[in-house]
């Protein structure tokens, strides 16, 4: 029941906003739909905690601790982003960068995007997972090109074609998985793509084909995660779309893509009896971390800067899942949570900052602390948090990942430390100038929605100091499901 409500709310929101998305009260409807989705997600979470795993709608949907935690995270960030987007999009409308018609598209697609992510997270059918991932791309392509500038069209095209081709590889991987599963599960093969059934027989699946399938699945979904060298679409799509979309792309879509990769990894590892999947994840992860942290230095656009930072963090998470085992999985899940909250908080403050400066170039944004102290502090604290400074939650998860790496993969630790140091220097230097530098801009009379920023940062801070027992149990259960060494 909770589940049906959870999926139908954003879908209904998308339809309603498709008709009324340009009305003055549309942003409030958007917020209301997102809040209702959040409440439904909380109810579902409570149910899973009390009653254990759920199989729904003829086994097509499956809820366990791993995905229910991502469902509530997705619904939460979806809600706060809707809060943020209301004043932000109003200013964009006033500045003439948008027309009411496009605002209607924006609102409708926003809800549709939430729906596709929730379907991708909760489905038990790997084919449906693919369909939902592709639908998530399609619903955001027209949002990336919302401003219709040449740069945004280019970004949209890249996003469309690269993710399209990438996800076609994932479809091939899914087909291979199906071939391997059908020969074991037999029958009409109706169940052969259901994750729970595959999980039950994963030891009997044909290793060569499964290995091949995993390569394609990793490349396919890895494109959506933004793993280097498949990351080309990511910085463009983040920089050129409206900021609320950057926040949800970075904070949520990347998580969902990682979720898909990890779900596949669990199956493949059980079938291969080798550490090939782990090694591939670690390899892709490390390359992304190093690559992104050095490219951070070359960025001039603030949203591109933080987009590259997202690639870096996705690399860290992928690496941690690659190491596997209780502690590393725990840390990776924690890192997914805190990265998602912190990065969206940063994009919220970046959005307001660049809106005030009238430019996304970092050299044009100066002295936020004098023109608008709250935005300045939001950006500063957010950046410190994402760079892994204690006492924020990112520190805790990165610390866990590094110590585990020291035990299990000592060779990787110096590389990770170097990359984190390079990223720290690159981001901190820029942010410091933007926040504390001299400014010529005047204080603007306009109240931004900064509640989400500080709410997110507060949660990240709490997670860094103390993880509530129910949450820790939850992470532990999920980490156990993912398994590994």
């Amino acid at each position, binding site marked *: 029941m909770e589940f049906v409500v959870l999926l139908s709310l954003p879908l209904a929101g998308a339809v309603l906003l498709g008709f009324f998305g340009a009305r003055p009260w549309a942003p409030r409807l958007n917020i209301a739909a997102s809040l209702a989705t959040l409440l439904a997600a909380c109810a579902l979470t409570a149910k899973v905690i009390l009653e254990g795993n759920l199989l729904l709608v003829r086994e097509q949907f499956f809820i366990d601790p791993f995905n229910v935690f991502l469902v509530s995270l997705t619904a939460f960030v979806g809600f706060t982003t809707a809060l943020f987007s209301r004043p932000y999009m109003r200013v964009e409308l006033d500045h003439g960068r948008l027309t009411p018609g496009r605002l209607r598209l924006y609102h409708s697609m926003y809800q549709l995007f939430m729906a596709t992510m929730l379907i991708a997270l909760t489905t038990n059918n790997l084919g449906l997972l693919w369909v939902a991932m*592709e639908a998530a791309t399609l619903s955001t392509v027209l949002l990336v090109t919302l401003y219709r500038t040449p740069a945004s069209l280019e970004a949209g095209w890249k996003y469309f074609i690269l993710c*399209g081709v990438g996800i076609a590889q994932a479809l091939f991987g899914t087909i291979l998985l199906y071939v391997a599963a059908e020969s074991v599960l037999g029958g009409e093969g109706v169940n052969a*793509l259901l994750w729970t059934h595959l999980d039950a027989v994963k030891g009997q699946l044909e290793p060569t084909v499964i290995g091949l399938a995993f390569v394609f699945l990793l490349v396919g979904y890895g494109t959506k995660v933004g793993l280097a060298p498949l990351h080309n679409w990511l910085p463009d799509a983040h920089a050129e779309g409206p900021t609320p979309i950057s926040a949800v792309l970075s904070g949520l879509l990347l998580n969902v893509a990682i979720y898909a990769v990890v779900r596949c990894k669990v199956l493949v590892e059980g079938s291969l009896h080798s550490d090939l999947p782990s090694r591939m994840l670690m390899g892709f992860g490390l390359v992304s971390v190093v690559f992104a942290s050095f490219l951070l230095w070359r960025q001039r656009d603030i949203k591109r800067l933080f987009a590259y930072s997202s690639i870096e963090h996705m690399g860290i998470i992928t690496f941690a899942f690659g190491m596997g085992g209780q502690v590393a999985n725990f840390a990776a899940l924690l890192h997914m949570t805190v990265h998602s909250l912190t990065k969206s908080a940063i994009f919220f403050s970046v959005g307001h900052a660049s809106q005030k400066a009238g430019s996304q170039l970092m050299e044009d944004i100066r002295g936020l602390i004098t023109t608008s102290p709250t935005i300045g502090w939001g950006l500063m604290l957010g950046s410190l948090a994402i760079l892994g400074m204690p006492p924020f939650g990112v520190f805790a998860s990165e610390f866990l990942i590094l110590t585990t790496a020291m035990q299990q993969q000592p060779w990787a630790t110096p590389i990770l430390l170097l990359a984190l140091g390079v990223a720290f220097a690159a981001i901190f230097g820029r942010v410091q100038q933007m926040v504390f530098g001299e400014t010529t801009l005047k204080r603007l009379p306009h109240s931004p929605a900064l509640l989400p920023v500080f709410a997110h940062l507060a949660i990240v801070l709490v997670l860094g100091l103390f993880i509530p027992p129910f949450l820790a149990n939850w992470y532990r259960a999920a980490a156990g499901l993912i398994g590994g060494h």
Partner: protein
Amino acid sequence: MNGVPFDLQILNSLAALLLLVSFAMLSQRRVVTLVNLLALQGALLCAATLVIAWRTGKSHLYVSAALTLGLKVIFLPWLLHRLIRRLEVYWDTEPALNVASTMLVGVVVVVFAFGLAQPIAAIASTATRSAIGIAVAVVLLAFLTMITRSKAMSQVVGFLSMENGLFFGAMSATYGMPMIVELGVALDVLVAMLVLGVFFFQIREQFDSLDLHHLESLKEET
């Protein structure tokens, strides 16, 4: 005669024709012809699905054949032709690699594809598993088509051809995916093309051209 049933012979000829069409697409520079080839590929795919459906007696394959016919043979080519007329993009520019070398690369790709298909064919239980190599080759050739073209329209045709190859692969390795997945994939392809139609007009409005060379300003330096 040689012991291969008649329907399998038809199927193998259809598979060979599919591969031939993929090569034709690789060398074709007229966008209109490219779209016609795509429609032909769809028609071959539809015929192959019908033969398999008739052979195995699986009723859901008839639905899937009808879906292929409606979407890939009729609707998408019609949509693309309409876009071509409205946007007046009839020719692709000279490809990055000349046609002869592209064809040679294509041959290498096909050999690679058959190597890749070996372990898959080994475990597939279908009678049609010999065609898996061709399906992989079609996917990779479509990929090559996308890489060597610079016009948005040709890249999209390459993308759809890749989807055809994947579909044929699923068909020959397992007699098709479960219905719900197939419907979902078809829906995604349909929506993707509609989004693309809107998108082309936006690009056109902004640049007066559909040449992707205009879309190369976002580089790392910026």
